[in-house]
């Protein structure tokens, strides 16, 4: 392959989904070992939202509000920033970045409602598609499977909504050649901005400034690493289009993208198995706190998964997906991101302050089954899910 072909394969052509799942799994282990913190996108949103309420003084009305750390010194806030930079650079290089406004009132309503419902879901499920699902399962915690069940149901309900909305949007009656008033809408030139790649320069500048800043502070070097790992995860997710929303939305939707849902589900399962083995090795050898990302589990987590699953479908992107589409220039997801960030802080504080009994017990699977068996139990459950996926594919495609 010529250098040009290699460049195209990496930076322009999309990667197969399973490559994305595999790389995500590996980076996830590196992140955990380096940062010693759960990878939960909403942890970063919580930091950002807390700053808004602190600066406006509204936090005085919240129970048990704690002053947030500097956004540059909060692990997931920095992780999210890295993720954003990674997606942005990937999108620019692939020629996929484009500023997209919101064209209809429905989109505004979906963004606001979706952002809010996702925040509520995250409160009940103890995290988003990462914190409550991916990071939880790989932490060998039972709550990840509870949320997964909810995501499957919520994604299905979302697909019913999508089909209902699509049926309401008319494909305009065919306009015959003679009666055509304006020429067919050829893609606009405004999207064809050749100066866009210049924006790439922002990425090394941001990195240099931040790393300089971290070097100047004792003990802050950990954040440089988090920034880079976040960047690589963002880059990988954009390149392989590892979309958790599509994965859970169209599994049972013949009218939608069920083929891609199946591919994405398999890629996510691959990432889960790789990361679970890595995290199990770290936890079994006491290199990682056994309680890390182990959250309470109960029916409320399933409820949270349903809410989150439905919310991500109507908003158009999940917890990490909102950062991703923001970095690709989608205004709808910027709105959802702002709404979910602002809603998440008060919802968390009020719900867990006044209804702490909603939280179930924490169940760390290896404490139930012992060490190798606990990990095998998780891989077994994921294998059952793979068989179910095979069965779903068979229902849709027959023996193809």
């Amino acid at each position: 392959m010529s250098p040009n072909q290699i460049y195209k394969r990496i930076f322009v052509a999309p990667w197969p989904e399973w490559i994305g799942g595999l790389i995500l799994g590996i980076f996830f282990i590196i992140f955990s070992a380096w940062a010693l913190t759960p990878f939960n996108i909403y942890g970063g949103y919580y930091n950002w939202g807390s700053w808004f309420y602190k600066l406006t003084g509204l936090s005085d009305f919240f129970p048990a509000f704690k002053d947030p750390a500097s956004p540059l010194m909060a692990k997931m806030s920095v992780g999210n920033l890295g993720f954003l930079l990674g997606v942005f650079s990937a999108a620019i290089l692939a020629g996929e970045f484009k500023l997209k406004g919101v064209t209809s009132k429905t989109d505004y309503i979906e963004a606001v409602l979706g952002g809010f419902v996702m925040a509520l879901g995250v409160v009940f499920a103890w995290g988003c598609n990462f914190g409550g699902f991916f990071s939880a399962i790989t932490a060998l915690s039972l709550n990840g499977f509870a949320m997964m069940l909810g995501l499957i149901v919520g994604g299905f309900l979302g697909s019913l909504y999508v089909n209902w909305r699509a049926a309401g949007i008319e494909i305009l009656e065919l306009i015959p050649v003679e009666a055509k008033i304006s020429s067919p809408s050829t893609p606009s030139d405004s999207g064809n901005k050749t100066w866009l790649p210049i924006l790439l320069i922002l990425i090394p500048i941001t990195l240099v400034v931040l790393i300089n800043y971290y070097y100047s502070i004792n003990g802050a070097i950990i954040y440089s690493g988090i920034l880079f790992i976040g960047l690589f995860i963002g880059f990988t997710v954009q390149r392989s289009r590892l979309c958790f929303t599509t994965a859970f939305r169209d599994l049972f939707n013949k009218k939608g993208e069920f083929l891609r849902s199946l591919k994405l589900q398999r890629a996510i399962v691959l990432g889960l198995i790789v990361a679970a083995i890595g995290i199990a090795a770290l936890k079994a050898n006491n290199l990682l706190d056994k309680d890390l990302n182990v959250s309470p589990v109960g029916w409320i987590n399933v409820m949270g998964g349903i809410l989150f699953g439905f919310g991500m479908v109507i908003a158009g992107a999940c917890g990490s997906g909102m950062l991703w589409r923001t970095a690709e220039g989608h205004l709808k997801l910027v709105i959802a991101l702002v709404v979910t960030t602002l809603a998440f802080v008060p919802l968390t504080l009020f719900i867990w302050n006044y209804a702490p009994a909603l939280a179930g017990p924490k169940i760390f699977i290896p404490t139930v089954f012992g060490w190798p068996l606990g990990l095998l139990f998780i891989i077994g459950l994921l294998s059952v899910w793979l068989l179910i996926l095979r069965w779903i594919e068979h229902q849709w495609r027959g023996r193809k």
Partner: protein
Amino acid sequence: MGVKFEKKDEKSYLLDVRGYLCPYPVIFTRKALLQLKEGDFLEVFTDNPASCENVPNDVKEDGHKVLAIEQMGRGEWKIVIKK
């Protein structure tokens, strides 16, 4: 608001789904193809990068032919399908 669906000439049509995220481009493309005759051509305009994979994969699954996926400008693509 509807989706622009125009007849370009005897055998070719144009569907503009720009502004729509997944999975709407796929749903609308399937809907438009239903109105076409065997052998007709459909050009789909999209600004959703994921649709450049999804639309071709799903219409192929339905038995149609994908003739071309062209980038029209930064962040915009045209997918040409033959029913």
